[in-house]
C-alpha cells in the first residue's frame, strides 16, 4: 500500500507538485491511501486534483482511499462536490 500524506495547504502550487506524485503512485493493482488529516486549506486546484485522482484510480483499477480533514470536507461542500468525492468516513448525502 502506498501512503501519501497531504501537506497543510493544497493550493495550485502544491497541487501541481502532487499531480505527478499521485499519478505515479496510482499503479494498477496497488492500493493508495491519501492522508489529508493535516490539510487546513484547500482550494479549487486541490479539489480538482483529488477528483481527477479519483477518476484516474477508477480507470487504472486502483483502490484509492482519501482520509479528509474538516477543511477538506468543508471545501468540498462549498464546491458542491461532497457527493462526488468518495472520501473515507464522511457521508455523501447532500
Amino acid at each position: 500500500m502506498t501512503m501519501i500524506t497531504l501537506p497543510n495547504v493544497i493550493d495550485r502550487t502544491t497541487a501541481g507538485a502532487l499531480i505527478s506524485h499521485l499519478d505515479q503512485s496510482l499503479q494498477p493493482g496497488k492500493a493508495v491511501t491519501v492522508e489529508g488529516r493535516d490539510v487546513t486549506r484547500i482550494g479549487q486546484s486541490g479539489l480538482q486534483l483529488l477528483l481527477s485522482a479519483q477518476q484516474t484510480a477508477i480507470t487504472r483499477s486502483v483502490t484509492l482511499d482519501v482520509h479528509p480533514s474538516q477543511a477538506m470536507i468543508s471545501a468540498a461542500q462549498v464546491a458542491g462536490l461532497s457527493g462526488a468525492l468518495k472520501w473515507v468516513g464522511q457521508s455523501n448525502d447532500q
Partner: protein
Amino acid sequence: MTNDEIQNIFFLECEEALVGAEEGLMACQAGTADADTVNSIFRAVHSIKGGAGAFSFTLLQAFTHKFETVLSYVRDGEMGLSDKLNTLMLRAFDVLSDHVAAVRGEADTPDDEAVSAQLEEVAERAAAGKSAFEGEDDAAPAAAPISDADAAVPEAAAAEDADSAPVAEEASAPADDIGLDFDLDGLMGDLTVGEEEAAAFEAAAAEVERTMEDASVAQDTLEAAAGEAAADVADASAEPANHGWKISVRFLEGALANGTEPLLMLRELEELGAICVSVDATALPLLQDLDSEKAYLAWVFQAPDHVAKSEIEEIFDFIDNECDLKIEVLTTPMSREGVKVTLAEIMADQVAASAKAAAAAQAVDTPAAAEAPKEEAKAETQVKAPVAEQPAAKAEVAKKAEAPKPAAAPAPAQPRNANSIGQTVRVDLAKLDKLIDTVGELVIAQAMMAQRLAGEGLDAIDEMGMLDLLTRDIQESTMSIRAQPIGSVFSRVPRIVRELESDTGKKVVLTMSGEGTELDKTVVERLGEPLTHLIRNAVDHGIEKPEVRIANGKPAEGKLHLSAEQRSGRIVISLSDDGAGINREVVLQKAIDKGLVAAGTQLSNEEIDNLIFAPGFSTAASVSNISGRGVGMDVVRQNVKDLGGRISIESHPGEGCVFTLALPLTLAIADGMIVTVGDQTIVVPLTHVLERLRPEEAEVEHVGKDLSVLNNRGKFLPIVRLDQAVGALGAAKTPQDAVLIVVDTESNGQAVLMVDSIVDQRQFVIKSLEAHYQPVTGVAGATILGDGKVALILDVDTLVADNFSAHAPAMAAA
C-alpha cells in the same frame, strides 16, 4: 503581510461584525427587525465563526456555532422572536463579544456554559418544531415580525432548511460550517506565494468587507424584492413567479493562475443564501493531463429571490474578466434535491490506455521515464473534448476543452462598478501619526513665516491668508482621518445597561443619539472607561428601583439618554437620567464627615454637586460591585481631564441628572492664548480661559503674606502668580501692572492667572513633554512658536490646585 497582520484584519472584521450584530439584535428587541435584520445578524455571527475556525480559536468557533444555529432557525422563520429569545440572543451576543475579546488577549475566556446550554436547548426545541421556550405559543413563528417576509419567499426558506437542519445537530458538521476558513486561509496561504496573489486576495478581502458594508443597499433591494414576492403570492396565477436567481459560473483558464480562488466567491454566494445545484466536471481530465493552474469546473447555483441581482454581480465584480457568469431569473422553485455532479465518462479505452501507460511506467523504472506515461497517455487517451484540427490554435483548443457545452454560451462581461472598489483603505496608525506630525510641523512653519513676514510689514498679504486657510484645511482633513465615530464606544453601552439591570433589578430604557459624531481615535479609545463609570453611576445611584419610581409617580422604567454632538469645535457628550438626582444634603454631610469640606462651609448647589468628583467620595451605604467604592467619579474627572476635556453636572432633585463631557476634537492641536511672563512665553489652553482684564487697584485685595485675590464682580478669586510657578525672571510684581486671565478649573472652580501680556491667540501643536523629556507638574506639554522658540503649555488645573493647597489656610481665612 504577516499572519499577525491578517489576524488583525480578522479582529477588525470581528469588531465590525459585532457592531452590526448588536444593532440587529437591538432592532429585534425593539420589534423593528425584518428578515434582512436577522439575516445580517446571522451573517455577522457566521463570519466570526469562519474566521475563528481559520485561526483555530476553537472555543469561539464552538460558541458561534451554537449561536448561529439558533439564528438560522429564526432566519428561516421556523422560530419566532419573543422577549425571552431576544434576551437570550443578547446574552449570547455578550458572551460572543467576550470570546472575541478573549482571543484578542484583552480578557479571560468567558464562562459560556449556561448560555451555551440555553442555546442548545432552544435549537433542540426548534428542531423538534416547538417554540423557543416552554410555555410560549408554538404558533409563534407565524406571529413574528420577520415571518411575513419569509412567507413571501417560502421556497427560499424551505431550500435553506437543507443547510440549517444539520446545523442543529452537534454530531454532524453544519452544511456551511467553517466556510470562511477558506477566505482567511486563502489569504494566508496565497499571500505567501507572491505579490500578485497577495494583491488579489487583499482585493478579495476588501470586496467581502465592502459587500458587508453595503447592507443598506441590500435592504432597499430586499424590501423591493419582498414586495414583489408578496405580490406574486397574491396573484400567483397571473404570471410566472420569480423564484430567485439561477447563477451559472465558470472560471476561465487563467483565473487560478492569477491568484483567484473561486471557492471564495462560491462561499460568498452561499452566505447570500444561494445553494449549489449542479457542478459540471466534465472538462476535468485524468491526472496525466491535469494542470493545477487551470480551472476545470463550472457551477450552477440558485439564490433566493430576496437576494438582489446586484449583490450576486458584486461577488464576481473584480474578476469579471476571469469568469463566465450568467445570472437568470429562476422560474421554478429552488431545487431541494441536492447537487448534481457531472463527471467525464470513463471509457473502456481510457481504462486500457491508462493501464498500459501505468504498466509502461512500472516496467521502465528510470527517472527519465517518469514523464513518459504522461506523454504516452496524452497521445493515446481520448479526451472528451474534440481534439482541435489546428494544433497551432492552442488557446482555442483549451477554450473548447473547458467549455464542452455549446448551450453554456459565455455571458457578456458584467460591467465593472468602479465605485464599488476601494471604498476604504486600512492604514497603519503609525503612518497616520507621522502624517499628523508633519502637518503639525507645517502649522509651525506657517506660523514662523507669518511672524517673519509680519516683521517685514507683509503680514496682510493675500498669499498669507490663502496659506493660512489651506494649512487649516489640510490640518482639519488630516485630523478627520484619525476621527472615528463615537458609536464604537456607545455600542458597548447597551450591554453595560443590560448587566446593570440584571444586577440591580432596575428597569432602564436606554436611548442614544449622535453615534455618528466623530472625534479623535485616541479620545474615542480612552472615553470608554469614564463613560462606563458614568453609566454605572447613573443606574446604580441615579435611577430608582421600580417600586420607588412608581411610588414617586414615575414610570417603573427609568430613562437613560446618551448623546453626542459637535458644538463650537468641541464634542459634547451628555448622559441624562430621570432618576432621583443628587441628594445635596447627603452629599454635603458625607463630605463634611470625610473631612473634604469644613463644617459650616456655605457651598452653592453647583459646588455641592461637584463634591461627588472629590477623591474618595462615596455616598453609597454599601460597596457594591457596581459602584460605591468612591473612586469612580474621581476617575471619571481625571480621565476626562487627561483628554483635555471637562465634565459638568446639572442635577434636579427628584427629576434626574445630566452629566456633560466637553472634549476636544483632537489631542494633537489645540487653541491657546500665548502670553508672556517675564522672560518666558507660555501657552494657556483656551478651554480654560473665561475672560481677561487689567484690574483696578481696588479690585485686588491681599490675604496673608503671598496671596492676592481678585474681586471679580463680587466673587473673590485667588491670583496665581505664573512667574513664581514657572520661574520666570523680570515679570510684573503687582496685579495692577499685569494682565489677569480668569480661568475655570475642574477641581477648584475659577482662579486668576497673572501674566505680563497677551501676545496672540492661535492654534498650537502639542508636543508631549513626557515623550521628549519627563512629566513636569503644572505643565501639560510644549509647543514650538512662530519664532522657533519652545513655549510651555500650562496644565491649568494642576497649577491652580497646587496654588490652592499652598494657600489653603489663607484661602480658608478669606
